[in-house]
């Protein structure tokens, strides 16, 4: 199984352009970027992928050991970069993928030119004076919510949803057909995401970074996002008018503008 099929890597845009790699967050798949990436296809080599367990990735490749920490996901990002021989990469990570990018850039700084971190949080659970926004019981309550919502996933359906891009009619039949994940994997990913603590990893990053903060983001609250900016050695901080946790969907124009302005600037 190749890295590219494992992570359902999809490429668009200028083959010889600077690579821009979009990494989706917890809860969805590369469809999250559908309104953002087209802005970059003229100038950049656009690379999209799904984390293992999400979207069109290969569920067989899910390894509870490897993916028991964000480092496993960061290793996947690096493997994609190596496989496609990406250098000078602009890494755009949403939600938990912001920290996945931080870990990847800390491990192989020479690969990355810029990090764009959208709604990042280095730790979701409060800790002393540190405000992550959540308590341990909140995370347990999330896992309960996930247990009662399979989002249309069922064991009968699982083989069908792998790579049905070429059969759009099929996708229409499925309720809640995006963001579909194997419930067991989604649960593990939730636990890994919300119990990670990457605060000490931020100082290891030398790559220039743009931190995009949403207004009233319930997942990455203001103090948590500010913490990320403060700890990174070279960062710009931009607050978007967009409200919520997914500006890539709710305000794709504003999000793409902010990224473009930073990259051009």
């Amino acid at each position: 199984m190749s890295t590219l099929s494992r992570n359902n890597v999809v490429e668009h845009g200028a083959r010889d352009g600077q690579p821009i790699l979009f990494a989706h967050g917890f809860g969805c798949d590369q469809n999250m970027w559908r309104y953002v990436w087209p802005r970059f296809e003229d100038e950049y080599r656009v690379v999209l992928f799904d984390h293992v367990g999400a979207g069109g990735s290969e569920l067989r490749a899910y390894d509870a050991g490897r993916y028991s920490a964000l480092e496993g996901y960061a290793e996947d990002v690096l493997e994609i970069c190596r496989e496609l021989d990406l250098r000078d990469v602009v890494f755009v990570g949403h939600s938990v993928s912001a920290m996945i990018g931080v870990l990847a850039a800390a491990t192989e700084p020479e690969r990355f030119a810029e990090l764009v971190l959208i709604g990042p949080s280095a730790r979701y659970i409060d800790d002393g004076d540190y405000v992550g926004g959540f308590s341990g019981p909140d995370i347990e309550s999330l896992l309960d919510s996930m247990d009662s919502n399979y989002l249309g996933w069922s064991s009968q359906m699982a083989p069908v949803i792998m790579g049905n891009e070429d059969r759009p009619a099929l996708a229409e039949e499925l309720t809640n057909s995006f963001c579909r994940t194997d419930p067991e994997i989604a649960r593990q990913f939730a636990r890994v995401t919300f119990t990670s603590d990457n605060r000490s990893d931020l100082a290891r990053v030398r790559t220039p970074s743009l931190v995009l903060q949403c207004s009233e983001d319930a997942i990455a609250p203001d103090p948590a996002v500010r913490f990320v900016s403060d700890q990174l050695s070279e960062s710009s901080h931009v607050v978007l008018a967009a409200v919520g946790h997914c500006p890539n969907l709710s305000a794709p124009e504003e999000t793409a503008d902010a990224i473009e302005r930073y990259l051009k600037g």
Partner: protein
Amino acid sequence: MSPGDDLPAASAAELLDEAPCGFLTTALDGTILQVNRTFAEWCGLDRDELLGKRRFQDLLASGGRIYYETHFAPLLLMQGEVREIALEVVRADGSELPALVNSVLTDGRPGRPRVIRTMVFDASDRRRYEQELLRSQKREREIARRLQQSLLAGELPAAPGLELAASYRPAIGETEVGGDWYDAFRLDERRIGLVVGDVVGRGIEAAATMGQLRSASRALASTGLRPGPLLEALDGYVRQHGVGRMATVAVAEIDLETGELRFACAGHPPPVAAIGESAPSLLWDGRSAPLDAYSSGGPPRPEAGHELGPQGLVLLYTDGLVERRTDRIDEGLERLLANVGAHLHEPISSLTAGLLRTLDERDGHDDVCVLAATISPPTRR
């Protein structure tokens, strides 16, 4: 004039207000723009306390709020609707209302902002029913697990010059128990019998079947049947009683005086033996089909023999030890040989426990058992 035409025009608004479900219109950020009386009453709040002041997601329990931001909102924005999402609405008094929620995103017509229309159903009884189902499933899993554990309980036999160790790991997490078993018993003054088997299926039924086959093998072995004929007699038992068809079994006996190993495998993974000082190897002889695989009775069951030298080791196990989601079975067998080789000079109990530790959590979907025996040469006794 059709029925209903004589209702006053105001009744459309009344329908919305009095409908037995919650109706809301919210802005894209979730801010409540319209709400019917039913939903306001469910929340235990006045409409004025909701309109323009609360976002729909603010009314959810903490887990639901995260779920809303990470799943519900993205789905709604991508596909224009979400259906049958289970969420808990928190009432003013702190109690929770289990709800099923459908939402659609309106088309943005010129001059009219896109809004979210949401319908909320009281799902208290449904949620209780689902929880009952989950509880009874869990109970059944627990009973099966306890049944299996009680069937596997019991001490391994002791004999001079013989060391035995067994390790068993039930399937991890929510998976139901399978029907794996191991057994070891004295056959007579100088021989010891070893059995490892795996019945088809899971749960209580598999555990009960396992119990029957385990007792039957023990009883048949006590009549003096050698491994091959014992499997044939077990075929007869399976056929006669209609249990355990296609189960796989490995039967072995060791003569403690001579160090002779005799064994037969019915569709079971090959035993591992370390004979003399040589590296561990797989015993591919003495093989035949799973139990009662032929409805009219199969060919005679072959058995094989080997001399276990000084410190000779034989290891029986179930397929969970060598099957992984991502590898082929032959890779699993190669890995097993390497792992046995690496633990060969350790005490036998740390060998079997060590083999289970080589399993990753990802391979926890199946039960695994390992039974190992070593014999010391008679001269050392």
